[in-house]
């Protein structure tokens, strides 16, 4: 049984911190058979720079999209955090040609990355990688499927909608 603040020998992935070169636990846990630190209950997580987050866009303006962050690194958050995706963070190239409505719509689920803790209210998110972007979108209660990196498609009507689409995960 290890309490917060106790020293451990091996560096573990989570639940530890380094204090002047000594690794200490931060939450209640135990060291398992391999000497690794295992947490007893979940560690409280919050978005950090570089974390991969899923968020739901709830409002778009000319220059940015606002979103609730729902999970961090595949772990659900207890309380929602606010994030924004600025126009210039949507993709790396031809940023000046972008129109916000053609990238996100309210209700879209977006996979993004935290790039800054931002100002007082928002985490700054970025989708400027191929694997980031909209992963789930709806039109008239119908789920859209990714069509190409700029468009999503309604499988019934074959109508396309403009989005910044994330590269779908291909299960092998």
């Amino acid at each position, binding site marked *: *049984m290890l*309490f*917060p*603040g*106790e020293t451990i020998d091996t560096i573990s992935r989570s*639940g530890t*911190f380094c*204090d002047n070169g000594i690794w*200490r636990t*931060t*939450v*209640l846990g*135990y060291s398992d058979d391999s000497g690794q630190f*295992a*947490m*007893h*209950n*979940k*560690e*409280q*997580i*919050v*978005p*950090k720079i570089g974390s991969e987050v899923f968020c739901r866009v709830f409002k778009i303006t000319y220059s940015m999209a606002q979103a609730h962050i729902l999970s961090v690194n595949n772990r659900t958050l*207890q*309380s*929602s*955090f*606010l994030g924004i995706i600025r126009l210039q963070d949507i993709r790396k190239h031809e940023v000046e040609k972008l129109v916000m409505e053609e990238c996100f719509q309210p209700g879209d689920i977006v996979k993004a990355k935290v790039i800054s*803790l931002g*100002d*007082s*209210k928002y*985490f700054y998110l970025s989708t400027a990688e191929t694997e980031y972007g909209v992963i789930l979108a709806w039109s008239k209660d119908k789920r859209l499927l990714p069509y190409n990196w700029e468009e999503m498609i309604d499988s019934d009507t074959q109508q396309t909608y403009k989005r910044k689409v994330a590269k779908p995960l291909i299960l092998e």
Partner: protein
Amino acid sequence: MSDEILFYGLRQDGRRPSDLRHSSINVGVIHSADGSACFSQGNTKVMAFIQGPKQNRFEKEKGKISCFLTSARFSTTGERKKVIRGDKKSSEFEEFLKGMMESVILFENIPHSDIDIYISVLQDDGSVESAAINAVTLALIDAGVPMKDFLISCSCGYYNSTAILDVTYTEGLSYSVISEFRIAVMGASGLVAYVNYEQFGSSKLSLEVTKELMALAIEGCRQVHFLIREFCMKTYSY
């Protein structure tokens, strides 16, 4: 107030000077909170709830802790009194608890987020502050808030050149006691985080007595630590 604290070596409730009261611990008592704990020590019963970490609402890089202490109206040992929220004593305690927890919680791991601590005193039979610190520690552990260390607290008093551990309400009233000498110890590193005492009248604490009280209180903290550890072993068994 001619109540004797020690009667032939035993205190009013039958304890010896260096005995703790019976404690009981419970965690996860409220599921809607992120973390909760109930710590009772004899008739003193304190609950603590944690909400957070949640997004910082203020323009501050570092997270913020807010403390809210409420006492139930029936909590007093003597007559029932009207409990005024935000009176001097409780707001002082809120402030100091905030400071202590700020030094313990690892904000680097939870940037840009706030933690709210709600403490509710259900029964007050002395040493509430110490019980509250212990309850908050347990609630934080339950919530999984990353901490550098955890705090354990204990109180003692001084009566007729005898130091007594874990002061009850009636013992705290007796005027020859340094009514409450509170101490908080970091559980893992063993460092003393906080010392505070309430004196009666104009009496002053001499150095020798302070040393004696410190030693006893640290011993008391060790016992509380042991209790908490035992409890956690049982509850979070794997």
